[in-house]
């Protein structure tokens, strides 16, 4: 207990709480703006963390991720424009409610479901991650190679519509991670004589370019549509102040519980992402209610609850593989690896041995962030509802400026901005041509670990028959091959069904 008190003191110190509060508010604000999601919000905010303590830095970023996930429901319900794809089901069930004058009710239920999903998933993270890390400590390089290969295949297959494109994105990410001094010989590799890249390409400018700048390029190209949506709401005057009644809670309780379970399960599996969680939960509630298309025609408070609880449960759960094994299962987790690295900390099973106090502090901060989410969302609802009306012509340039500021700070000056611009262009084409930028980023982040474990594996295993001594690696290797086959077949069927329709 004595050793736990300093952790509590650090987590609930006014300075740390202020950063969490700032993070949640900033995240909620960015999430509420149409077209801006949690990836953009977190990537752009990373530079602010350079000068913070490790606990405040991680807590701030987690606050942003949580805030922006919940905040994206605001534009989904009010404008029918999800802040990010995972809020699409919220828009489907919530926008008709807003048109019927029940915007306040839908926003409140969305917030309550978000907080419950987020808190539930945080508790699961606290209970599961350390246990899993203890098992992970027994994993050797051969097993790690198998697990990393399997994770990448799994992510490649699930984060886009084409397995081929997903694998290309993942391999491209690993290839880009090879730039810099080679680990064993220290000789420059793919550097083109640039000393600036001897330590490898900096993660933050790459992430900001792929996530935020590319998104801004696309959004600026769609400025007319965004402006029309903002104008539409300005003239509509459809909001009506309503509360969440006991009857609403009765209708939504089952949906929230199911959403928590689905979102947490989806979050723990690398690569599935929040969209899968929210759509699965929404679909399950739609079927269970027996109302069918009525959900989208008249709106459904339980639909909003189902989608938001699952969407928000995904974020903390996606930290389970990150904290326990060091594998980022989502974009947010990949960005958090960058933040951990800046602070000199390596995520993975040793985290619980070497930085136990930090991780406990992060857990406490995550719970505090959930509570702040409730307060900020509830009392700031009217403010955020006004913010979604701000013209994109004012918002987008500010985000472009913040992107450059972040890339400048972590990327070594103007060089960092150049790297960001290059990956902004790559990200733009990746998004337009449907290549998963998530898989690219995760490949880029796990590339160095994958190379190291592959080298050790090739040193340890000189004959294929020796793989029999590593059953875990074999199982993951077989699963990777099976995953490629199975996911390819599933995607082909989906495409054929779409063509058939």
């Amino acid at each position, binding site marked *: 207990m004595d050793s736990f008190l300093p952790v509590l003191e650090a987590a609930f110190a006014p300075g740390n709480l202020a950063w969490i509060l700032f993070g949640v508010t900033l995240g909620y604000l960015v999430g509420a703006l149409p077209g801006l999601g949690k990836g953009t919000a977190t990537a752009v905010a990373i530079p*602010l963390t*350079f*000068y*913070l303590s490790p606990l405040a830095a991680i807590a701030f970023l987690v606050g942003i991720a949580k805030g922006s996930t919940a905040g994206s429901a605001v534009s989904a319900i009010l404008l029918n424009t999800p802040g990010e794809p995972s809020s699409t089901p919220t828009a489907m069930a919530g926008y008709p409610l807003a048109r019927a004058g029940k915007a306040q009710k839908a926003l409140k239920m969305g917030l309550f479901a978000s907080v419950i999903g987020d808190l539930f998933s945080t508790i699961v993270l606290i209970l599961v991650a350390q246990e899993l890390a203890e098992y992970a400590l027994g994993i050797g390089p051969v097993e790690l190679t198998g697990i990393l290969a399997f994770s990448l295949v799994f992510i490649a297959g699930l984060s886009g519509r*084409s397995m*081929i*494109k997903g694998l*290309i994105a993942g*391999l*491209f990410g*690993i*290839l880009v991670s090879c730039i810099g001094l*080679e680990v*064993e*010989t220290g*000789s*420059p*590799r*793919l*550097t083109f004589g640039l000393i600036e890249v001897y330590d490898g390409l900096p993660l933050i400018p790459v992430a900001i370019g792929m996530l935020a*700048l590319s998104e*801004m*390029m*696309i959004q*600026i*190209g*769609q*400025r*007319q549509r965004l*402006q029309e949506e903002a104008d539409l709401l300005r003239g509509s005057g459809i909001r009506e102040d309503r509360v969440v009644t006991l009857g609403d809670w009765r209708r939504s309780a089952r949906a929230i519980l199911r959403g928590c379970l689905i979102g947490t399960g989806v979050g723990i599996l690398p690569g599935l992402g929040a969209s899968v969680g929210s759509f699965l939960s929404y679909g399950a509630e739609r079927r269970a209610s027996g109302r069918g298309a009525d959900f989208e025609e008249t709106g459904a408070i339980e639909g909003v609850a189902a989608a938001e609880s699952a969407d928000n449960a995904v974020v903390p759960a996606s930290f389970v593989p990150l904290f326990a094994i060091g594998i980022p299962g989502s974009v947010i987790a990949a960005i958090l690896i960058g933040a951990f690295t800046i602070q000199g900390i390596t995520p993975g099973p040793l985290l619980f041995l070497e930085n136990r106090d930090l991780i406990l502090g992060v857990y406490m901060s995550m719970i505090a962030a959930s509570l702040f989410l409730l307060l900020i969302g509830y009392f700031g609802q009217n403010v955020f509802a006004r913010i979604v009306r701000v013209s*994109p*012509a*004012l918002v*987008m*340039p*500010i985000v*472009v*400026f913040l992107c*450059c*500021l972040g890339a*400048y*700070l972590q990327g070594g000056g*103007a060089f960092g*901005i150049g790297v*960001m*611009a290059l990956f*902004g*262009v790559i990200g*733009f*084409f990746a998004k*337009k*041509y449907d*290549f998963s930028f998530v898989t690219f980023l995760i490949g880029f982040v796990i*590339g160095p670990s*994958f190379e190291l474990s*592959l*080298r050790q594996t*090739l*040193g340890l295993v000189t004959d294929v028959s020796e793989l029999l001594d590593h059953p875990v690696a074999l199982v993951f290797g077989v699963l990777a091959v099976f995953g490629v086959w199975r996911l390819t077949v599933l995607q082909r069927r989906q495409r054929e069904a779409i*063509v058939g329709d």
Partner: protein
Amino acid sequence: MPKSDLIAGIVLLVFGLTMLAVVIPTQTSEGGDATISPALLPQICSVGITGLAVLLTLQATGRLRRGMAAGVAVPAAEWWALLAVLLAVGAAIALFVWVSPAVAAVLLIVGPMLYMGERRIWLLAGIPAALLIGAWFLFYRVLGTAIG
């Protein structure tokens, strides 16, 4: 969209072959006493990308032959937006290096605002001023560090 897949497949095929034939041999050392060549992983990735690009190209060709709609991946407005943002960032870097960081930042904010149709002078002046003062206050005063 098979046409965009075909374009992507061909571009990636050229990229993969260039990596294997030119970039990796010239930009990677032999490795000397290293147990495994430094070129191994880049080669594995490039071979993978090339092979998958061939598959993507063949798949797209097949779908085009079956008469599937070609579609447009990037509308003209988005091409212009891409160009505008790149111009703003490029000009900002040049101004940053040769003139001053503050001027570069103003251009970075005002350029996209003008491109997006903002013409109100008080906003064109006020937003860059507020952002620069905010960044100065946050980094120099609150966080106690320096930019530039």
